[in-house]
């Protein structure tokens, strides 16, 4: 089997290195998943917002109940 040209060998070996790096990044990132600090902060913000909305609704309901009495 004839070897590819020098340039093709260079390009191929460099591309293989890039592919190895990309696979390593993808595997580790997938392992961490949505547990990054940014994601967690976003989730916390959503939770806080939901709690605030629930609290507001509860207060409104209590006000309405008091007005009805």
């Amino acid at each position, binding site marked *: *089997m004839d*070897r*590819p040209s*020098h340039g093709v*060998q*260079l390009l*191929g*070996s*460099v591309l*293989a*290195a890039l592919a*190895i*790096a990309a*696979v*390593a*990044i993808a*595997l*580790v*990132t997938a*392992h*961490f998943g949505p547990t*990054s*600090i*940014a994601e967690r*902060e976003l989730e916390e913000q959503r939770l806080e917002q939901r709690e605030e909305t629930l609290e507001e609704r509860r207060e409104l309901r209590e006000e309405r109940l008091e007005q009805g009495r």
Partner: protein
Amino acid sequence: MTDTLEQLIEDVTRGNVTEVKVVLATVVMALAVYQLLLAAVGYGWLRVPFLASAPALWTHRASGDTIAILVVVVALMCVGYYGFELGDDGGTHAVVAIGLLGVLAAKVLVVRVGGRLGRLLPLLGVSLLVLLGITWWTSAAGFLGIA
């Protein structure tokens, strides 16, 4: 100064310091294994029909430069953010990492100087791979739930 570096690391990684460090360390580890294969082809210990010695050594050098930069970046992140401690938990990691940086510096020096010292390159390269492996295992592997 330490606070500034700590803040910079946190800003650049958007608070995901450990995650970014583990990703970079794993990329270094994966490339280091590839380096071993390239060196084996380059020195003629391993013969493959699609890659000759010269391009293998060229890519070995280019990939090695990238690894050296990544190792320094990870080390700076590690010491700059987590500090330096030789306690029970991080003792092995810190000692092996210092050894790793020492061997890395020695290898860069040998490559630059060349000559008869070049005979040490395979030994230094294998030592680097082993030290990288231990450093990765004592830190990143734990975060990935492997160790």
